[in-house]
């Protein structure tokens, strides 16, 4: 084979324990191993980089037998960055002059990790790192004529980079640069998060079977749950996730670079990943197990003439235990959606000639077989039972003769397709590596398929153990009186229409928020008192690690009056904001304030908990409940303001009813950027008949800047207070 026609497939990171257990051929000569920097538990395997030669999926250029990637056994630790090389994907057709690089990063099995992974992955692709002077990765890739696609599921982040063949290294370098320079300005991540939410809401608003399937495949029971995984993620958590999990030791790296010398590509990737590895800590967590598909019928009722029905079940890979036998049996049942035992049973029991469309839904570690059709409502129940009967029929009547020939022929076709197409092969290799299975040899699998001793009986039993979910979208008729159909009605909560039904949805969330807001009012002095709060006068002291402490006298009257006298060292700065007078003066000199500066000055006191609660009590600030969260040892209700221009959230302690944090996104004219600000309030004390916080820590951006504010004195203003009635001097 000419070197110029060689196609490469490179993989990084394999299950370590498996590698050692099987004595996999490891060539470490090309890349030196390197001490690890991150923390490591004692149980973790020794880290090393390995070069593993894989047999090609197909092709005349293949030499030698496949060497397993890792041992089976289900260990999910991902620790050893290794590079596996497939010698050839060449079929003699003109290569597409494109390089494809794929990184699949394992998502850990932690609560909330899915949402964090979604935000981090989208920020990786779509957010710029202003501090590092890095534009968004997508722009960089598109700038060299390539493109980038992203898929996130509860088990992994899958990033595909497609670039012109001679820019393959540029694309990978750009990806690694982006991965090692997360956006510092949390406004970048906050924007991505909001866009992600908006996009997800829009997509989930389409009331169709795909939405239902997406929700179930992601291990959720409602679209709300899917949205909540993003809503519940905080920026700090996303950054922490990024630091710990966006790294080469957390997944599979594969590159398909047709026409380049294998060794050269290998060395270049090895040196690149070496640098990247040094910047990321050692993984300590397990890769997530694929979410389990729920068993049963999920019926989303809607007034339509016919029902869309989708049967979904996990599809085995051929190299799994009894995988080949199960593939043969699945073909015998479905025959690609038209024919097979399912169709025959339907014709016999319901005289119905039903055609299904067959699709596959891929995730990083698993795939689902989906059969979709549209039928009369009366036929829906029959489809469920027909599938169950067809599946169970193998226990007494295994495929033989022509049926077996057809099923085996189709299974063979499927195997060849899975291994022969570069994209599908990359999917397969990713599943194998992340699931801790050894790479399978196609020839062996094909031989196994033709083996007369193929354990179809075992396959039938294994197939029966697989969950089956049937999703239905359409009117529900009167079901059979036996009532045996395991149906779960899917109501509006399952498929909330975020388009038309938003008012109803928000109305429900606002009602839920009322409970917590009322409790917060009670905790600080009661509705009557708080309703009258318009502002405050406070003497306070601010301090931070970065600058000198400052003392302030602050008068504030919502929404637009403020007077502040700030003393820093020996200087005194007075800021006055009123309807007609907006000025800052020091040392006898005055400068007028611009509109952005005024808005910035007013923003902070406007976020005081009592001011916010007062606005809510006067119906000036609609709040809705986002979620109830556990934060440390406290449970808090998170309320979000609906109609604020920028995001504004309050966390109310569910036990004490006190506002603990106020989170907002504000425009900082000095930074010319949106900045996320989190204010944490503590030390509530009595102020007249009410209670107000006397301690606050303000954290800006990613936690690098924090200011502590301690109130020394405070009094609250009401509409009758006169100290702001006149224009301040």
């Amino acid at each position, binding site marked *: 084979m000419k070197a110029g026609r060689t196609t490469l497939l490179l993989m990084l990171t394999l299950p370590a324990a498996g590698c050692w257990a099987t004595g996999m051929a490891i060539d470490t000569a090309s890349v030196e191993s390197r001490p690890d920097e991150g923390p490591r538990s004692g149980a973790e395997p020794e880290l090393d980089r390995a070069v593993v030669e894989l047999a090609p999926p197909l092709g005349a250029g293949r030499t030698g037998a496949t060497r397993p990637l890792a041992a089976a056994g289900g260990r999910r630790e991902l620790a050893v960055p290794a590079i596996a090389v497939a010698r050839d994907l060449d079929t003699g057709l003109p290569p597409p002059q494109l390089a494809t690089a794929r990184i699949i990063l394992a998502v850990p099995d932690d609560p909330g990790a899915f949402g964090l992974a979604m935000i981090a992955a989208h920020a990786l692709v779509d957010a710029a790192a202003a501090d590092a002077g890095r534009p968004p990765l997508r722009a960089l890739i598109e700038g060299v004529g390539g493109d980038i696609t992203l898929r996130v599921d509860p088990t992994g982040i899958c990033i595909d980079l497609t670039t012109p063949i001679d820019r393959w290294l540029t694309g990978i370098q750009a990806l690694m640069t982006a991965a090692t320079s997360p956006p510092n300005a949390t406004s970048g991540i906050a924007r991505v998060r909001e866009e992600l939410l908006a996009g997800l809401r829009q997509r989930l608003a389409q009331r169709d079977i795909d939405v239902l399937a997406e929700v179930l495949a992601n291990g959720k029971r409602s679209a709300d749950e899917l949205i909540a995984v993003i809503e519940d993620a905080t920026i700090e958590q996303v950054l922490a996730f990024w630091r710990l999990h966006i790294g080469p030791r957390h997944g599979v790296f594969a590159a398909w670079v047709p026409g380049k010398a294998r060794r050269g590509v290998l060395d270049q990737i090895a040196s690149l990943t070496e640098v990247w590895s040094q910047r990321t800590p050692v993984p300590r967590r397990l890769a997530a197990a694929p979410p389990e598909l729920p068993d049963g019928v999920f019926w989303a009722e809607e007034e339509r003439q016919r029902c869309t029905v989708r049967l979904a079940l996990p599809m085995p890979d051929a190299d799994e235990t009894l995988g080949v036998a199960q593939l043969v049996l699945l073909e015998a049942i479905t025959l690609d959606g038209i024919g097979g035992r399912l169709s025959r049973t339907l014709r016999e029991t319901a005289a119905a000639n039903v*055609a299904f469309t067959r699709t596959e839904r891929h995730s990083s570690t698993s795939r689902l077989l989906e059969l979709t059709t549209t039928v009369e409502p009366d036929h829906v129940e029959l489809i469920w039972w027909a599938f169950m009967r067809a599946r169970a029929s193998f226990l007494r009547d295994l495929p033989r003769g022509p049926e077996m020939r057809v099923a085996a022929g189709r299974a063979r076709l499927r195997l060849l397709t899975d291994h022969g197409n570069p994209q599908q092969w990359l999917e397969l290799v990713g599943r194998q590596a992340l699931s801790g299975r050894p790479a399978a040899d196609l020839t062996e699998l094909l031989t196994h398929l033709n083996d007369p001793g193929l354990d179809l009986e075992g396959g039938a039993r294994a197939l029966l153990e697989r969950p089956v979910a049937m999703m239905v979208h359409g009117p529900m008729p009167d079901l059979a009186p036996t009532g045996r159909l395991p149906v779960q009605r899917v109501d509006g909560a399952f498929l909330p229409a975020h388009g038309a039904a938003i008012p109803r949805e928000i109305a429900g969330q606002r009602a839920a928020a009322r409970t917590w807001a009322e409790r917060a009012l009670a905790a600080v002095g009661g509705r009557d008192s708080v309703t009258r709060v318009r502002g405050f006068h406070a003497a306070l002291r601010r301090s931070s690690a970065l600058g000198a402490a400052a003392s302030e006298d602050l008068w504030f009257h919502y929404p637009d009056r403020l007077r502040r006298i700030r003393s820093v060292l020996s200087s005194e700065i007075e800021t006055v904001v009123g309807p007609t007078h907006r000025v800052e003066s020091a040392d006898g000199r005055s400068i007028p304030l611009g509109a952005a500066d005024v808005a910035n000055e007013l923003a902070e006191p406007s976020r005081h908990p009592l001011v916010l609660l007062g606005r809510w009590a006067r119906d000036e600030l609609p709040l809705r409940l986002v979620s109830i969260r556990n934060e440390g040892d406290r449970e808090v209700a998170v309320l979000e303001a609906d109609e604020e221009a920028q995001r504004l959230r309050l966390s109310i302690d569910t036990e004490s009813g006190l506002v603990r944090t106020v989170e907002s996104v504000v425009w900082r004219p000095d930074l010319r950027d949106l900045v996320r600000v989190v204010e944490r309030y503590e030390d509530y004390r009595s102020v007249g008949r009410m209670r107000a916080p006397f301690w606050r820590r303000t954290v800006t951006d990613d936690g690098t800047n924090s200011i502590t504010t301690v109130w020394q004195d405070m009094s609250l203003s009401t509409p009758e207070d006169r100290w702001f009635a006149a224009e301040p001097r």
Partner: protein
Amino acid sequence: MRHADRGFGTAPGAGVAGPRRRCHSPWACRLGWILGAFALATNASPQQGQGQAPTPQGAQQPAPKATPPPGTPAQGTPAQAGQPKQATVRHFRAPDGSYFILVSARGAGLVDWVVVTPAGPVVDPPGLPGLTQALAEAALAGTGRDVSRDLTRELEALARLGQLEVAYSQMRAAKATIPAEVEAEVEAVRQATAALSDPLAWQRAVRAAPAMGPNLHHLPHATLLHVRTTPDALPAVGRLLWEQREGGMLRGVSEAYRRVVASLAQQQSSAPLGELRREILALAYPGHPLARAWETPAEAPVPPDDALAAYQRTQHPSQSCHVIVGDLKLKAAVAVLREIFATSEIRLPPPDAPKLPPRSGVARESRLPPGGAVGVAVGYRMPAGTAPEAAEALARWLTPRLRTRLDKVGGDGTVTAPFPNHTADLLLVEAWPLQGSKSSAGRILGAATTALNEAANQGPTQGEFLAAMAATLTEAGRDRVGQAAFAVTLASRCGPNGRGFKRGYEPQPIGLPTLRKLGREVLRPAGRIVVLRGKR
């Protein structure tokens, strides 16, 4: 005249006799390399190859081997020893007139078979836009030979059902009160017709061959039917495809047409400047079927005779092209295909392909009455013979320029070429004010005109050229990742009757000077067509 068996992927200029061409631009080289992949035996036309034994030539021909008996194609095992290192191509016309392009690739153990038949406005009967698309879907409901339980009775029932459906649709269109007995009769005949056949039987047979598919790909100018199978099953699949072509019963064509109409209507409604597109096509191609390409489809009855006539015209062997890519023993495969595609009973002559009206040197302008989306469409006819790739590169270069200029006046825009499909030669510029923008259609037109004139005068910069070429390259490459995608892309480029293949995708390196020249030639004010609609 000799057949040509040629290897793929030798170098830029593959498939072209003579010394290698030198490209001064690396991008042009690469693009030429890609296009070279499609330069399949360009010295021999499909007609020339008809009925002649293939004669391998050149250094890349496979080593001589014992010819397997007819009907015995390559065994479907991957990595067959002794197979040619690089793919070889053979094209021929079968005795019935069908045109075949066979590409023997190695290693995959799979065969991808794509049948290309004409579709779209050029072959759709007037008033029934999208009918050929519906026919392709209805044809999957099987043939009469094995599927019908009583062929004579079913044919009668289908004819009766067609007449009833036409009458029923006419009554609905006239908003007449439809008697209950008519509705009952339609339903009864429909059920009786359904009981006389098993419309899924043909697809079951395809799956049992074994094969994956059939999958339909609807292009603006053609329909592709794609089946993936193993080499062993090639004869079985061939017979099934022949049966489908010859005995298509068009069961359920009315339902299929309703679905197509709904889909086309949705597609058109998603284009806000649809009415401007319709108008510009009418001005660009007066009297030509392409003028109807953006016609809004209406749910019209499908007379059975019209449906059958349209089906036979599109399925006539002289109108179809078969692209087969995969593990093929070429000689054996050719023998098998010649045997299967020996005769045809489709007698209806294919229509003459209408020629595009000549380019006009007169500028035309049309103002639509206010009421719809505000915007501007500008069309330019490109020179005859402009390769689709060159047109796409031109559009890619112009789009960022246009958008940059429009951005200054609160607008946005895009450039598409060739429009509405690859048989056309129109470069379409669309521009519109952004939401909230106060720019009028006239101002938007002014900005667009400035951008296009500047582009014509200045030509592309090196950066613009590289970006346009890179995007073209990436898209062209993505369409060919994997054997199936390669087969579908090759088929779509060859088009019905393999005309694209006959023309040959000669390596046409698009260099910066070429693009500049094309831009200057196309963006002339003389032949420009402008359609605009302003605010109330």
